[in-house]
């Protein structure tokens, strides 16, 4: 990752140890994941032990240490979505993409994430691709949703 960008982020957070979560969030916003060398660099610059950084980076689910796909499919597995059949939607997404939840397809096109609740319970079950919400999703609709993003990327 661009060192200058990292420096700017560190600067914005005034090199505070307590801001490590915010710093990593900002890095991930740019890079889509947390590259190892960036974390090592941050550890050096902040003089914060790498074990602490690794602990935080693996504790919080928002962080990923491996690159993610171009499109992230978030299957909401909150209670309302679960009752409305979220597990079946997840099964269907996994079957269609031949990967499991929290994994990325070999072509780096899609990553599947499960999320606990997006607060859109009235629209359950919800599937979110990147920023687009799909409400009242049934397993039969999954293929159509995914193919839209596949063809969009080809364009």
């Amino acid at each position: 990752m661009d060192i200058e960008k990292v420096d700017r982020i560190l600067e914005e957070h005034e090199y505070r140890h307590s801001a490590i979560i915010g710093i990593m969030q900002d890095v991930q916003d740019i890079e889509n994941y947390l590259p190892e060398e960036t974390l090592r660099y941050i550890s050096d610059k902040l003089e914060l032990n790498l074990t602490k950084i690794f602990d935080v980076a693996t504790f919080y689910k928002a962080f990923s240490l491996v690159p993610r796909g171009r499109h992230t499919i978030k299957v909401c597995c909150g209670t309302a979505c679960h009752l409305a059949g979220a597990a079946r939607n997840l099964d269907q997404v996994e079957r269609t993409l031949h990967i499991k939840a929290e994994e990325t397809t070999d072509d780096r096109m899609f990553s599947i994430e499960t999320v606990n609740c997006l607060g859109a319970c009235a629209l359950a079950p919800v599937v979110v691709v990147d920023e687009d919400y799909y409400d009242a999703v049934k397993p039969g609709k999954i293929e159509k949703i995914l193919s839209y993003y596949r063809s969009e990327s080809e364009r």
Partner: protein
Amino acid sequence: MQKIRTISDLEDIRESILQDKDSEKTIIRLCLSTGCRAQKSLKVNEALENEIKKYGLQNKIEIKKTGCHGFCEMGPIMVIEPANIFYCNVKPKYAGDIISETVLNGNVINRLLWKDPLTKELTKTEKDFPVYRKQRKNVFYNSGKIDPTDIDDYIAAGGYSALGKALATMTPPEIVKTVVDSGLRGRGGGGFPTGIKWRICSAAPGDIKYIIANGDEGDPGAFMDRSLMEGDPHAIIEGMIIAAFAIGANQGFIYIRKEYPIAIDHLSIAIKQAEECGLLGNDILGTGFNFTIKIDRGAGAFVCGEETALMISIEGRSGIPRSRPPYPAFEGLWGKPTVINNVETFANIPKIILKGADWYSSIGTSTSKGTKIFSLVGKVRNTGLIEVEMGTTLREIIFDIGGGVRKGKRFKAVQTGGPSGGCIPISRIDMPIDYDSLKDAGAIMGSGGMIVMDETSCMVDVARYFINFLLFESCGKCIPCREGLKQMHHILTNICEGLGEKGDIERLEELAHFMMATSLCGLGGTAPNPVLSTIRYFRDEYDAHIYDKKCSAGVCKNLFEYVIDAELCNGCTICKLKCPEKAISGEKKKPHSINPLLCIKCGICFNLCKREAIRVK
């Protein structure tokens, strides 16, 4: 934006905002909260703006981008003033009609009105809604009415006058006493009396104290905090400033989960505006009192909703709860006395200060005062956010407000309190809702999620769902919680997969009581609630799973089969076409059948069949 230097300034500014308002203007209140945005309300906004431009009516019509109206499922929602015409399911293509028909000619478009699914009656205005009749909007009053990104709108609606009153006429101990007397209890789950917490913290030794608003709404199925932060952020900020003044804090934090980007955005804007107006920062309203607020984004950890874990997360570490005592009011953030309250708790404060403790304590039950926002979701007909007086019965909430269970199915249970809560059956449905009655029923108030379940919900699966949820959301530090959850999950999974055996229920109960007594924090201590409450009220379902190997709800895949009712099937072939495993066979216009050996129970056919000919056996 004008700087507000004194308390009388505030009143003058309010006056001038109200005077500047063009009463001739038609105001369209369009919801741009997460729920409506998910249903493309931004596109509706765009289409409306184009139409307004087309007619050259920019000075005559104003689109006010509001927060949640509570009726999320029917989104996008809009209300057209002054007649308060309520439109739902608005699509961008209707924008032209809305402007030309309703705004210019005053005609109501019937197809955009809400139709009662039972009586087929059309509802024209907001207040005619049957859903709203039993509600009492207090905290949620402004949401859906004001533009949350405009501080002027909040001030015009009477905002910050509680702060003015508190700073001008009350001493910190008087404020604390008012909150104590009001009987307000924490809205985040535990229900600890807010005023007592403030009193302990204000008496704790130390010059530096902190205020934290907990907006890490992690309970799946609850979204009132999100809507509140999106729809009325200044109310939370005002409550925090008053709390800070009362306990002597100069720094505040709002911890918001990152899954709520709009809430983060709106609160950031609100904080910036309050700073520019001089309502945050140094010498607030000329009183010499200083207070600033910083936003911390969560990073995806349910356990950070626990107060000690949340503080540790703000300190930049993994959110692992620590044992209490010491309580945060003595030793909180960075070891300093800290008041940590839920965002909804803070949003109650301005009302209490303005209208007084007596007014507030006159609402609700003897032990639980005020109103509470619930998110009513699941298999209920009208889903969304509701605000009711404490003591309202579950029956009123689910049947009168929620319109009962969907598709004529039978009510089975309502789950309250998220993963720490429990499932309440029909036998308890006339119970008035407050902190204590819920606890007595084996559930908790929690943050206020209410998930209605019907006969298609399997209670063993619900228990397994929550334990599975916690398995990965527990911090993993203490053995009772980490290893206990693992064993519970193992037993429940076995039961759901048809491998349950005699003694499993007793083992679950033993583990549950052990975890409750020995876990380090509240997460582990309440984690067994979903298991215990489902065993308590739905033991027959557990027995059916274990002994008969049957899941009558059609959820546990190994314990049921899909069959086609030959009498109902008209051979439309839809199911056959859509079956991914080609497990369905049959000729056109003749009853079809499912090959159980090929069926993977994905449920596609079950959902597709319009004649409901596919059954669970």
